[in-house]
């Protein structure tokens, strides 16, 4: 398998990268494109810290070969800010003390952002199910769940 050029849309902008065999989306984002908001936790698909969205679906970028995103839309934590303003979910995380060390936070926010796109007023069970692949070792799950609940409580659909 030789290197190829992979083209995809990252946070609304087309990127082209030289893709060596076994290169993952996480390595491309962090090492080639400087998008270090996507964190490396376990590098083996176990912790969710590297979660990004591909075509709106949460994926573990540490396991995904870069060739698999050819022609697709990728969204990372850096893409949630619009016109210098952070997303309401990010603000709610901040207001509700939903981050401690902060290393798992971008992955948490990406899965919850994907959830809110599909289900703008998720139940507590839906929130917990969405977070089930994401590990927070500071064990701050309660404020994370509350950050979503408080955000969606105010916005009647």
């Amino acid at each position: 398998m030789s290197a190829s050029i992979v083209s995809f849309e990252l946070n609304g902008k087309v990127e082209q990268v030289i893709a060596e065999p076994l290169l993952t989306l996480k390595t491309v984002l962090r090492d080639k494109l400087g998008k270090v908001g996507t964190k490396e936790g376990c590098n083996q698909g176990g912790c969710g810290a590297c979660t990004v969205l591909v075509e709106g679906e949460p994926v573990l970028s540490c396991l995904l070969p870069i060739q698999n995103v050819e022609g697709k839309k990728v969204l990372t934590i850096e893409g949630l800010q619009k016109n210098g303003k952070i997303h309401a979910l990010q603000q709610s995380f901040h207001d509700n003390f939903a981050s401690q060390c902060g290393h798992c936070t971008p992955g948490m926010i990406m899965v919850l952002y994907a959830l809110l796109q599909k289900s703008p007023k998720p139940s507590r069970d839906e929130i917990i199910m969405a977070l089930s692949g994401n590990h927070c070792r500071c064990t701050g799950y309660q404020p994370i769940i509350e950050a979503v609940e408080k955000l969606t409580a105010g916005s009647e659909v």
Partner: protein
Amino acid sequence: MSNQNKPLSKEERQYKVVGQPVPSRLGLGNVTGGTVFFHDNVIPGKAYLKCARSPISHGNIISIDTSAAEKMPGVLAVLTHKDVPKNYYATLCLIGVEPDDEPVLADKKVLYEGEPIVAIIAETEMQAMAAAAKVKVELEELEPLLDVEEAMKPGAPIIKPWGTATNYFVYEGHHCRRVVHGDVDKALAEADYIVEGKYEMSPIEHAPSETTGCVAVPQPDGRITVYTNTQAIYFTLDNTALILQVPFNKLHFIGGTVGGGFGGKCDVIVEPLACLGAMRTGRPVEYKFSREEEMRVSNPRSAWRIYYKDGVMKDGRIVARKVTSYADSGAYVRHTTYAVTKQAASACGPYFVPNFRYEGHCVYTNHMPSSPFRGFGVTPVSYAIECQMDKIARTLGMDPWEIRFINAYHDGDEKPHKKKTEDAALIEVMQAAAKMTGHELPEKFKKMSSSAR
């Protein structure tokens, strides 16, 4: 200055910080992915360090052959104990803990499974791992010593024949850390009940989201800048300088952002080798644990075994307490000596016990060296104390709340290590806890206070 003691008026008590939620300095960075962890610094031209490790828990090193590893693709440097200027160190040497007992890279013996023997620096992480797998170490396997009480027995084989050549840390000439207060044997003999308990805690891995690591970057002026996630940046800088035998001002450590530490990133593990690799190759060197390394060869909380023997009177008063504790320090001393000392001062808990004897042992075994984890020996002993309090209550047929109110410490009580109790709060905390949980306390306990007896 007498008005300093005047109670504050209600207006003056409108605190800006105390009792108020204060946003974290890192909060906005965390939610935007903008917080810079050590691994988020984009550093061009990085090389990667991986170690060849001991596959066994205990053995003599017969020979180390790195010739095949040196020929592997991408290899830039291969380091053994011979390349480390001062190979033996003790993490807490800067506060007088001695002797140096741990090699940066093993030379004579391996004392735990996963102990590093050879460090490989290569162009890529995978090349470093592939070369590490080619290191040939001939070992004479020895029976591992894995139980703390077995290790303390007279005649037990000494696993570390250097340093003090004992299977325990030597506290100012003693085999244990000891606190003695009053006459515990006399009080035990006179007590109505003797309540004994054995409490054990397994080692626990901190398992932080971000694994332990650093990047050492050589600078044009000869200094080395180290981006690290250590929790102990000054201890780590100073120890690294001592190991490398360079002046402290040759190293510039940048850290403070830790992706989960909990005590697991206090030891001096990755920085000395990364710096040595950077000095050898002239390249930035990254040494970051994989998840597997974090789980298998990074330090856990020590396992503890704690024995309690309490003398209790019919009215519920604990009149004597004898504690014998064993901390499994693993192969080397690191921080466990301090955890035992801290436990010695906490083994009564928030209770007043007039006669007390504590003997805490910091024991060496062929387990992974252990480190702090949220509480330096206090968490395990708190677990033991509260289990023991419940056991005393059951033995006497007394309410578990009552046994705690009867024995709660008060301001002015002398603790076993001769400190006068100040700002005691157990009684008030229990009163508040009872109220919050809807537990009705007898009037006499509602009226109690922690002020001097």
